[in-house]
């Protein structure tokens, strides 16, 4: 498809594209590179690299604009046509871009509210599906963007405890933690604003009821240290934080469905997709490989002592999974 935009872009990259056309005559895609973006934190950079390298393995030429600012910057770049795709979280698309709630999404799909059995292991529960379907439909209608398949990995807010604490007290869900709090003291190590925000302590109390809980408000950089040193027995985590792996923590299931799902998926311009059908196949093949456990360990390689480059971590991951040949 030759729109005015691709013509202009085509002119801009003509020398590069010409050179590639000589060396790669059988390239699966058209000669315009696919511009892959990402936000500016380690996980976003890793996933951005995974998408870029998976596309390269499928024969596309890729131009990287990784390390963009926040959500709004990446989204605007995509809408304006400065990017073709970037990894986004379903919950972020719902709350930040569309400014809707999980209730809006479930109402649109007619799904029931989350129940303890709602999220089968490794699959998607009704709420995950409802949010995904909702953002996909709204993005297509409002922005000319669409979402490819979502990954099982879910980077949402979560409560985590030490494995020994979980095993000694038989606690794997927030409901069980709250029941434990009826007889014992719970202290949550969290950034100080956790006590003020609606989806913080107030949200927990509204969803799970009253219990014996207080917050040890600390700087985000030391919240895990406070748990490890027993200043607190619960930590407010993001569920793909590398520290969950480092300290062998147990992430408690949000069985009351307080926090929305944040599954990652490529958000793609629809015109790019219709001109390059192979993009969907290449990235949908990678999507199921990204589980929460995998993401924790990939994050660990980048932020931990090894300090590996996101590009190297992505290459190793794709090689091990046979997406690219070593």
């Amino acid at each position, binding site marked *: 498809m030759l729109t005015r935009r691709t013509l202009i872009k085509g002119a801009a990259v003509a020398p590069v594209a010409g050179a590639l056309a000589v060396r790669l005559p059988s390239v699966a895609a058209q000669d315009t590179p696919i511009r892959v973006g990402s936000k500016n934190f380690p996980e976003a950079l890793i996933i951005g690299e995974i998408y870029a390298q998976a596309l390269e393995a499928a024969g596309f030429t890729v131009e990287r604009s990784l390390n963009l600012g926040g959500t709004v910057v990446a989204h605007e770049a995509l809408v304006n046509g400065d990017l073709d795709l970037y990894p986004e979280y379903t919950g972020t698309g719902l709350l930040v871009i569309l400014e809707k709630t999980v209730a809006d999404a479930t109402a649109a799909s007619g799904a029931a509210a989350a129940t303890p059995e709602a999220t089968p292991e490794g699959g998607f529960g009704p709420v995950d599906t409802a949010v995904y379907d909702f953002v996909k439909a709204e993005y297509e209608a409002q922005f000319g963007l669409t979402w490819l398949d979502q990954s099982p990995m879910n980077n949402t807010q979560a409560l985590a405890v030490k494995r020994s604490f979980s095993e000694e007290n038989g606690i794997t869900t927030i409901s069980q933690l709250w029941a434990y709090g009826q007889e014992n003291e719970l202290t949550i190590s969290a*950034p100080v604003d956790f006590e*003020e*925000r609606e989806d913080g302590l107030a949200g927990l109390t509204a969803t799970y009821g009253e219990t014996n809980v207080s917050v040890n*408000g600390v700087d985000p950089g030391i919240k895990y240290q*406070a748990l490890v040193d027993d200043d607190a027995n619960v930590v407010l985590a993001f569920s793909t934080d590398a520290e969950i792996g480092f300290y062998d923590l147990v992430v408690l299931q949000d069985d009351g469905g307080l926090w929305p799902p944040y599954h990652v998926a490529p958000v793609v311009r629809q015109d790019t997709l219709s001109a390059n059908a192979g993009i969907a196949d290449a990235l949908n093949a990678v999507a199921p490989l990204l589980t929460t456990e995998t993401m924790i360990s990939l994050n660990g390689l980048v932020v931990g002592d090894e300090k590996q480059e996101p590009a190297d971590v992505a290459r190793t991951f794709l090689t091990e999974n046979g997406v690219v040949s070593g």
Partner: protein
Amino acid sequence: MGLLADAWHYIQENPDKFREALEIHVRLSLYALIAAILIFVPLGVMAARGGWLSRSAVNAISALRVVPSLAVLFLLYPYRRDLGDLLPMFDRSFALALIALVLLAAPPLVINTDAALRGVDSAVLESARGLGMKPAQVFVRVQLPLALPVIVAGIRTASVEIIASATLAAFIGVGGLGRFITSGLTLYDFSLLLVGAVPVTLLTLLAEGGLAAIERWLTPPATSQTAV
């Protein structure tokens, strides 16, 4: 005014939370100031009476000024278990914040005490000795009273620094008024920020004004005239 009204509304809605934060803030600042005075004013006295060794000690303490208070808190954080054992009557994080604030108050106290005592006119000390006073009497009845206004000025500086920096204790789980400031910044809720910032400002002004009054009261009439 809308922001201030919202801040006031928040305090009325959460009186217990606010009172607890205020109490922690005042307690932390007061303990830190008292401990710092008890430790560093005598150190300043020793420095003023000592030789080159004490001079280097004063210089080393002045160098402390370049370390930001937040850095002190985070540098000490991993050792808070050991530091907490030094002050078992307090909660671990509270003890750590207390130690950091006491260290922060060292430069103004030591430097002012040292400078104040050295600044007393040697002719005055000479005539006191000429009157037959023993060295201890010269110090207690002549040198210290004359130096006191400048020492109190140092206490004033230290108290302002302590009250303002106690807001940083919110980063290590102590709470205090800083929790509202930090939360307000994170959530872009500026009325919440004022719930912490306005009382901190008022406390600072109160300490500043009170100590300035003491300082004026302590200043002998003669010196205040020459000062003018």
